[in-house]
């Protein structure tokens, strides 16, 4: 079953602008991850944020997590044409002592960065 829902479904911006994508989920989580997928390719892991973390940075990426609202956001600053891709959030549900690492993906946000 799908746990994450991303918003917006599609986003088009100019190079240099910031892009913000949001993700909401339904159940308690162990961690939340963001992935990027270029058209027709496999997914690339971007960043992982644990349930006890509120914000994480990696280069031009900033991820926030609000467990009270069951939501996360991914901010890409100073976007580039090469950032054009689909972005997915994925959650690892909290399973107590058993951690299989299963990911439940959202439907994704398609980002287009125009040169």
């Amino acid at each position, binding site marked *: 079953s*799908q746990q*994450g829902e991303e918003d917006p479904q599609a986003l088009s911006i100019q190079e240099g602008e910031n892009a913000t994508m949001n993700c909401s989920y339904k159940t308690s989580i*162990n*961690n939340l*991850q963001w*992935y990027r997928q270029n058209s*027709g*390719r*496999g*997914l*690339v*892991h971007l960043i*992982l944020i644990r349930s006890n973390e509120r914000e994480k940075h990696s280069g031009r990426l900033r991820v926030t997590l609000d467990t009270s609202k069951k939501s996360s956001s991914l901010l890409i600053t100073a976007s580039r044409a090469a950032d054009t891709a689909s972005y*997915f959030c*994925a959650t*690892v549900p909290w399973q107590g002592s058993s951690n*299989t*690492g*299963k*990911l*439940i*993906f*959202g*439907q*994704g946000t398609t980002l287009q960065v125009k040169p």
Partner: protein
Amino acid sequence: SQTIHQWPATLVQPVGSPLSLECTVEGTSNPNLYWYRQAAGRGLQLLFYSVGIGQISSEVPQNLSASRPQDRQFILSSKKLLLSDSGFYLCAWSVHGEQYFGPGTRLTVT
């Protein structure tokens, strides 16, 4: 460094034919392994996962099956393909939570 291989890259099969997709991981031991399917323009659906040799958990009942004959080998199979089996199949591995994906196999059932 770790690498993950999937083959074939593309496959066109008639309805009712068998299927075997293979995934192998190099450079790590005892990884968790996963099979996902992605329909066009949609997110990934987890099909199977494995935490060890011979240990397979199914997430979605369907006419697909999975096997893990070796620590770093994960196979997705079907005895008779359906039209609805068309999609992009992705294998992934993880050790510490983050998942690393293979390049995928695009399957078209005709």
